[in-house]
């Protein structure tokens, strides 16, 4: 594709996209026992669904992601979707070949039913009273979205981090509805250290005086500071020591260390910016809810803590990708997953990608990572799409 005269958007992008809404009109039971009187999922799609409806890929987003995975919302939109590097014509998730679906998860704050939605029973936003959601609930709602789109079986379900957990759950809960699961920078359960970081983030939010027990919206305020701190802590854990040294070192943004006047390191400035922009776009109750979903995810728990048993129902192929400097979802966690999949006799391939970008690597164009994805999904296309 060449640049068209009217468009200033990159030619390797899916271009202008607009979100759509799927409304599930009837009651939906959550795993926690509560019921929602219907729900809405906002989602985007890229590429075209083929006549056989065999070329769909579901992309599951991570903690702070959204349905806007690729493309631009307007001609002068500066920020493309969160996985623009990976989704598009000729990219690893090739929209010339695949039809890509990416929903915003239930409980999110980008348009799907969540804490900012008005509770029909009270006429007030759900706020802190939004029921506890789990990865399993997300997968159930995504399956309803797939029904709505007429997709019986995905060629692949792909996700990084928390998104990988959803792909894993797809494999075990809807074994007939996917050909392959791609689990990137993922784990079968969080470690104590991981839960600890999430709890620090939650406490930063909850202890912000503007949080008001989660009822900040009704009072017209927002726990900006808490959200900012939560994001700053999270962000540091998504980078690596080496990566931060290379990117920021000890460079100063302003001031003079000699006189100790108004010193701001580049890394401080960067974190402040990240934290501030996050507090503008993310809802605090959603963040608390989503981090809890991460913490509670543990499919082995229902099977005597035996991950091999937990994976038994899966029939799809698996691809497990991890990154050398990712200490939040380390290579060791991916290896556990791979070993369990082998022990369960599943078809699995794995790659460990050299990258200095820590957990964030899964969002970036690391050449070998994309080679691996491209090769794997190319194979999936021949198996599931060309000759289903």
């Amino acid at each position, binding site marked *: 594709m060449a640049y068209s005269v009217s468009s200033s958007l990159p030619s390797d992008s899916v271009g202008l996209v607009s979100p759509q809404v799927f409304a599930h009109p009837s009651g939906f039971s959550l795993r926690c026992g509560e019921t929602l009187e219907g729900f809405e999922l906002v989602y985007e799609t890229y590429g075209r669904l083929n006549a056989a409806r065999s070329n769909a890929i579901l992309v599951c987003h991570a903690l702070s992601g959204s349905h806007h995975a690729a493309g631009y919302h307007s001609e002068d939109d500066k920020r493309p979707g969160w996985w623009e590097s990976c989704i598009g014509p000729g990219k690893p998730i090739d929209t010339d070949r695949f039809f890509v679906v990416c929903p915003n998860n239930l409980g999110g704050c980008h348009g799907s039913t969540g804490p900012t939605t008005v509770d029909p029973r009270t006429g007030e936003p759900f706020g802190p009273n939004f029921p506890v959601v789990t990865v399993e609930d997300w997968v159930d709602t995504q399956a309803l979205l797939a029904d709505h789109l007429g997709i019986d079986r995905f060629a692949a379900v792909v996700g990084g981090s928390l998104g990988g957990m959803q792909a894993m759950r797809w494999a075990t809960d809807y074994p007939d509805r996917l050909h392959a699961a791609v689990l990137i920078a993922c784990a079968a359960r969080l470690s104590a250290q991981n839960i600890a970081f999430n709890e620090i983030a939650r406490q930063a939010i909850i202890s912000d005086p503007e949080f008001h027990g989660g009822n900040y919206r009704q009072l017209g305020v927002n726990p900006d500071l808490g959200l900012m701190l939560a994001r700053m802590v999270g962000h540091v854990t998504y980078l690596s020591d080496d990566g931060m040294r290379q990117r920021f070192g000890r460079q100063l943004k302003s001031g003079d260390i000699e006189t100790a006047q108004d010193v701001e390191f580049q890394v401080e400035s960067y974190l402040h910016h990240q934290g501030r922009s996050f507090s503008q776009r993310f809802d605090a109750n959603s963040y608390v809810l989503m981090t809890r979903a991460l913490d509670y995810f543990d499919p082995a728990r229902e099977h005597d803590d035996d991950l091999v048993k937990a994976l038994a129902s899966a029939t799809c192929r698996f691809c497990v990708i991890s990154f050398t400097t990712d200490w939040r979802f380390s290579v060791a966690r991916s290896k556990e997953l791979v070993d369990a999949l082998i022990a369960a*006799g599943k078809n699995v*391939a794995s*790659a460990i990608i050299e990258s200095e970008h820590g957990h964030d690597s899964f969002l970036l164009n690391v050449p070998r990572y994309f080679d691996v994805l491209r*090769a794997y999904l190319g194979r999936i296309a021949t198996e599931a799409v060309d000759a289903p």
Partner: protein
Amino acid sequence: MRPDLEIIAEVIKPGARVLDLGCGEGELLAYLQTSKQVNGYGLEIDPDNITTCLHNGVNVIEQDLDEGLDNFPDDSFDLVVMTETLQAVQNPDRMLDDMLRIGGECIVTFPNFGYWRCRAYLALRGRMPVSEHLPHAWYDTPNIHLCTFKDFERLCHSKGLPVIDRFVVDERHLARRLMQRFPNFFGHIAFYRLGRPNSGEA
């Protein structure tokens, strides 16, 4: 398919669980998957090989053999295969132990350093043999544990590992009569099929 892999494929039973250590581009596993419904996995560390395996639909696992195989439980496979990799691992003897712990049987292939051309090269030129099959200079070769068939059999004997089968071929993977009589001189590559250490021996 490469002739050496064809020879291995012949002895593998349909439906077997096979682990291929250093699976390269995954030709053996790709063949076994389609023709023998084998549930196979290959370990590999070379990025290009891994990409090729993915392209071929092979269950390739990125894992460095020298970091051990502790993640594989005892008896988790029917057969463990290693083609022309044994000479490149840190501890070939411990590798054999591990292979026979994981699988009831193993197949190992490696080049014979006692092959007459190697001997002639060393004897006449006084230098470490370099050939089409072993193209590396001594200082940058991955083949850090080259041995002769005799060396290998001695190791098997000392470990009490029964040699179930042995098959010797030349560079073109052909078996000729002379090399069956004097394998350690005329044989270029050997396939060894080994079983677990004989139990009950004092």
